């Protein structure tokens, strides 16, 4: 394996790990279910993709590579579907999303730096 793929793989793993943590921080910080959902989808898509591609670059055999590809395809197919089903169910059961008034913004985090950087 060349140095380039190794470095690329490391970069993807670290970046993916950072996105994972970001997604979960968003899951904690955001004010209501619907906004949290957006934070969760950060980790489901790009973070999963980056980490799995990072692993693919270091796959020792073609079988491992193939399995990682299949896992990625499954995740990319199922996670938006599950997310959509969840959002639809929540909305239909009467859970109201938090929405700002005309032109206003939600000041969701009155204490700066709480749970943040």
């Amino acid at each position, binding site marked *: 394996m060349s140095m380039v793929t190794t470095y690329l793989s490391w970069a993807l*793993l670290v970046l993916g790990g950072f996105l*994972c*943590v970001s997604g979960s921080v968003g899951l904690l910080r955001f004010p209501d*279910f619907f906004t*949290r959902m957006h934070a969760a989808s950060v980790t489901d898509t790009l973070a999963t993709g980056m980490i799995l591609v990072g*692993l693919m670059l270091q796959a020792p055999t073609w079988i*491992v590579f193939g399995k990682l590809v299949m896992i990625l395809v499954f995740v990319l197919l199922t996670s938006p579907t*599950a997310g959509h089903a*969840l959002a639809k169910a929540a909305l239909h059961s009467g859970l109201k999303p938090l929405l700002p008034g005309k032109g206003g913004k939600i000041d969701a985090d009155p204490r700066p730096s709480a749970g943040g950087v």
Partner: protein
Amino acid sequence: MFTAAAIAVLVAMALALVRAYAGPTLYDRILAVNVFGTKTVLLIAIVGFLTGRPEFLDIVMVYALMNFITVIGILRFFEYSVSHASANSETIKEQ
């Protein structure tokens, strides 16, 4: 590098656990479990490489499939219980 990624995933798991415990609505909990499942997929995949035995990917595949079925099952459960007087107290029922 695998270790760094594994620790990042673990931190993310711990945060999702807090959300699963705190709720407040049941949909938050379902979301947290779903996120937790995705994290487990990643953790097991990384750990497989960390220990140099990537054949664990079969387990990861099972998770990727099971996670979906579980979420659908949970949602299905609520379709039944809405008509079943025990509608949840945390969300407002549809008028």
